[in-house]
């Protein structure tokens, strides 16, 4: 198997640029998630990789081979579609071995491969059924088996979980990840669900408005967002507008301590992001900015509680996991919130608004 390399790929639809100058490497055997909101260009990028859309510019390399102009049926990348796109006129087995049959594989070999793949996706004994007789989860397994039948060098999945219910989706995320690890196949998954991306991916590519915002492992994307868009799109965050002042950031009357990057000079307008699970309430001995706050609302959803606060620098949500603190909070209660230095991320102002 070979890695995939995108060099300056872009795509125009009329006067609209759907995908902008994408440079990405998909390492061999790695699962990469293209993550972003609807209309960010992630599916268009996947379709260009599959050969279903021709890029307006740039090149796609598979190993050393330039496959930019190669037709989809000659690339033979396995692809799972959002609606699975199974053939209703064929049985489950015939769907799975479709690529083998049209390639001229002997009937006995195709049947053997079909049974092996159905076994792989835990659908042994379903070969003779019609597609209409399967549940959503079973259809997805058939679509995966069908895409894997031709032993593709790159495995592409376009929102593969979106047609499944929430419970099944979580199970299938784990199952798909385990299957991909077992096969060691280079895989690209398009999703708008950050939880899905974080569950399955070795690497996440966050996209917005046709551009790549950040590339990195899931934990890096979550804990070290490179810009306000990523901080906002991946997980939840409290945002505050401020101005850099002697290595700190002034927000209203408060001066917050944080690791300000060197490029911010005094007077620069900035935005601060703070994950809701990073602040401490009424905790001494934590290095960081301490602010007075009052509780305005408590949202208890079982495993976690969201405590809504009104602070000196504006409204803020603090998330406490059950068991992390047994303290109870009531509306109107006064408290001290500590924002740890390493829990605050600073970005140039207006970046999030622009995104």
């Amino acid at each position: 198997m070979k890695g995939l390399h995108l060099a300056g790929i872009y795509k125009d639809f009329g006067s609209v640029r759907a995908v902008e100058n994408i440079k990405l490497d998909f390492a061999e055997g790695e699962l990469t998630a293209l993550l972003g909101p609807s209309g960010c260009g992630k599916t268009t990028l996947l379709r260009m990789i599959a050969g279903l859309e021709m890029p307006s510019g740039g090149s796609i390399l598979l190993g050393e081979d330039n496959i930019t102009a190669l037709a989809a049926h000659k690339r033979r990348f396995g692809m799972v579609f959002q609606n699975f796109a199974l053939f209703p006129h064929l049985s489950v087995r015939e769907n799975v071995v479709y690529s083998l049959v049209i390639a001229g594989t002997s009937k006995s070999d195709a049947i053997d491969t079909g049974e092996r793949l159905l076994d792989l996706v835990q659908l042994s004994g379903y070969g003779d059924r019609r597609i209409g007789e399967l549940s959503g989860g079973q259809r997805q397994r058939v679509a995966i088996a069908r895409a894997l039948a031709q032993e593709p060098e790159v495995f592409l999945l376009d929102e593969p979980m979106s047609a499944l219910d929430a419970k099944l989706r979580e199970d299938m995320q784990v199952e798909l990840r385990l299957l991909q690890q077992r096969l060691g196949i280079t895989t690209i998954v398009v999703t708008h669900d950050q939880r899905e991306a974080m569950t399955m991916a070795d690497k996440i590519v966050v996209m917005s408005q046709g551009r790549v915002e950040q590339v990195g492992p899931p934990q890096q994307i979550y804990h070290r967002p490179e810009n306000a868009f990523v901080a906002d799109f991946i997980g939840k965050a409290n945002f505050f507008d401020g101005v850099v002042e002697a290595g700190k950031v002034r927000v209203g009357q408060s001066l917050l301590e944080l690791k300000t990057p060197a490029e911010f000079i005094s007077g620069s307008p900035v935005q601060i992001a703070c994950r809701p699970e990073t602040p401490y309430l009424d905790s001494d001995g934590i290095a960081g900015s301490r602010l007075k706050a009052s509780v305005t609302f408590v949202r208890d959803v079982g495993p976690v509680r969201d405590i809504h606060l009104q602070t000196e620098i504006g409204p803020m949500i603090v998330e406490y996991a059950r068991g992390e603190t047994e303290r109870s909070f009531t509306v109107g209660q006064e408290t001290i919130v500590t924002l740890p230095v390493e829990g605050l991320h600073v970005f140039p102002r207006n970046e999030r608004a622009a995104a």
Partner: protein
Amino acid sequence: MSAASQVVVPMTVAAAAKRPPLARIAIWVVTLFLCLTPFLLVIVISFGHKVEGASWEWAFSLDNYQRVFVGANWPDEVTFLYLQKLYYSLYYAVIASVLAVLTAFPFTYLMTGLSKRAQSVWLVFILSSLSLSEVFIVMGWDVLLSNRSGLPMVFKATGLTQWLKDVGWFDTLRDWGLANPRNVKFKTSVFATVLTMAYLVWPYAVILLYPPLSRLDRSMTEAARTMGAGPWTVIRTVVLPAVRLPLIGSVLLLFVFLLGVYVAVTVFAEPAKQTMAVSVYEAVRGNTLNAPFGSAQAVILLLTAGLFLTLGQWLTRRNAS
């Protein structure tokens, strides 16, 4: 509300409920009369006797049907003249309907891949072509295929006829009845008849195929492409099976429609290869003025259409199951 109106309203409702639905019955009677009377009359007349002077009288005779199947002089003499006409009816209708659907299919498939606006323009254009009458279309094709002013003259003027002679294909065309010793000729021929009949129903074929093809899930064809299927393999293994039933239905519908085509056959078919529809018209309004015999042929044509529709429905059901 006053007390009086409170009483009146329930009484009116009750009266309306009890009143026989005269309007509904009247609509049924008129509809049945309009739909069934012509058919019933034709069936009744087909068993009647011809009266000289273009009239007929009531009877229950199978002579007309006997004449269609084995000739008027059976058992002394057996002729299959009218069965031959029925054969040509089926022959032209089958080929023309299949040809129309086969050529309309790729056009419609490509059309459904265009933008919505382009699709609308094409559909309006095709729908507007339906306003052309059979006579108008046949007249156009008559001119186009005529030996003195149509395509044969183009063949001769451009040297195509000479080229066909040089490469030796001209003799083949003569064998097929599409050339005389001097030039190609399209009138009269099966080729011209079938071509014009296919042209007549081609817009109907597009309109019948458009809904199933526009509803076809394009991700299925894309999935096939990612699995190594080239364009023809995609058509053969995905698109055609997905629209198999609408294709059969379209062929059947156009076939039944073409069984009754009159003008195109009279203009383009050889006298010996005329259809039963032409024979019906000749019997009823032509020289023979034999309404019972024309009616018997019409009934047989109707039963043939019904037979093919039933067969098609049976095939469709078998495929669906």
